[in-house]
């Protein structure tokens, strides 16, 4: 849309939903691989963390408010290289000579907290979309 208006607000809120959905995917990946000891790069799975970036919606807009409105998007996904927990399990095919297996550095409790944050942030985005919608409906009621 050329003129920023009610639909650009929907676009911004939608970008928030997309970003939170991406975060949800990354968290799901971390949780699913909480006990994965083999990866394509070798070694155990390392926890991933999405980095959100602000992106200007209309950098050349005349309106100073619209110039400062930013969408959000996942710029990159950071990989944590912290060492994982070592578990003594000599039977494990990925155990080293001493019989220790390095587990992924994923903390399930932390991931659950992040999951709740992502899901609440998504709900907040949906709530803002609902209120943008009701503002548009209210504006249309002027003409009635």
């Amino acid at each position: 849309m050329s003129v920023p208006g009610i639909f650009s607000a929907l676009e911004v809120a939608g970008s928030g939903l997309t970003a939170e959905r991406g975060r949800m995917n990354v968290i799901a990946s971390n949780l699913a691989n909480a006990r994965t000891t083999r990866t394509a790069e070798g070694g155990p799975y390392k926890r991933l963390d999405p980095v959100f970036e602000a992106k200007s919606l209309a950098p050349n807009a005349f309106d100073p408010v619209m110039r400062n409105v930013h969408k959000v998007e996942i710029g990159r996904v950071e990989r944590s290289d912290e060492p994982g927990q070592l578990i003594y399990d000599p039977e494990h095919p990925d155990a080293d000579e001493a019989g220790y297996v390095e587990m992924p550095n994923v903390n399930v409790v932390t991931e659950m907290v992040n999951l709740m944050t992502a899901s609440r942030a998504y709900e907040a985005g949906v709530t803002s979309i609902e209120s943008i919608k009701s503002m548009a409906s209210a504006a249309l009621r002027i003409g009635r």
Partner: protein
Amino acid sequence: MSGQGIEAIGQQLRMVRPEDASNIRDGFDQVPGIDEGSLSETEQVGFSDALTAAVDDAATRGHDAHEMMKDFAAGRLDDLHGTMIASEEAGISVKLVGSIRDKLLDAFQELWRINV
């Protein structure tokens, strides 16, 4: 003014001579904005053009939303909220066009009711 006010005005109107009437018309011609020649080409964008643009915009949004829903249903698209936002945008656009049309029809009816 007494109860005979309206009749008195009627009497005065009947007394207006043709040359006075032409003076009145001359007066109207001097009112800025009534003279069509003073409007530039860009200012003369008709109401129907604006309405057509709004209808086209709504139709495009509706078409996009329809395509997204089809893709989503067929599994080609995974963007649930994007689809919903597109269909909401289409709905708002159609409602806007509808209320513009209602306003236009109201104005037309109003003109129709004028007693000449």
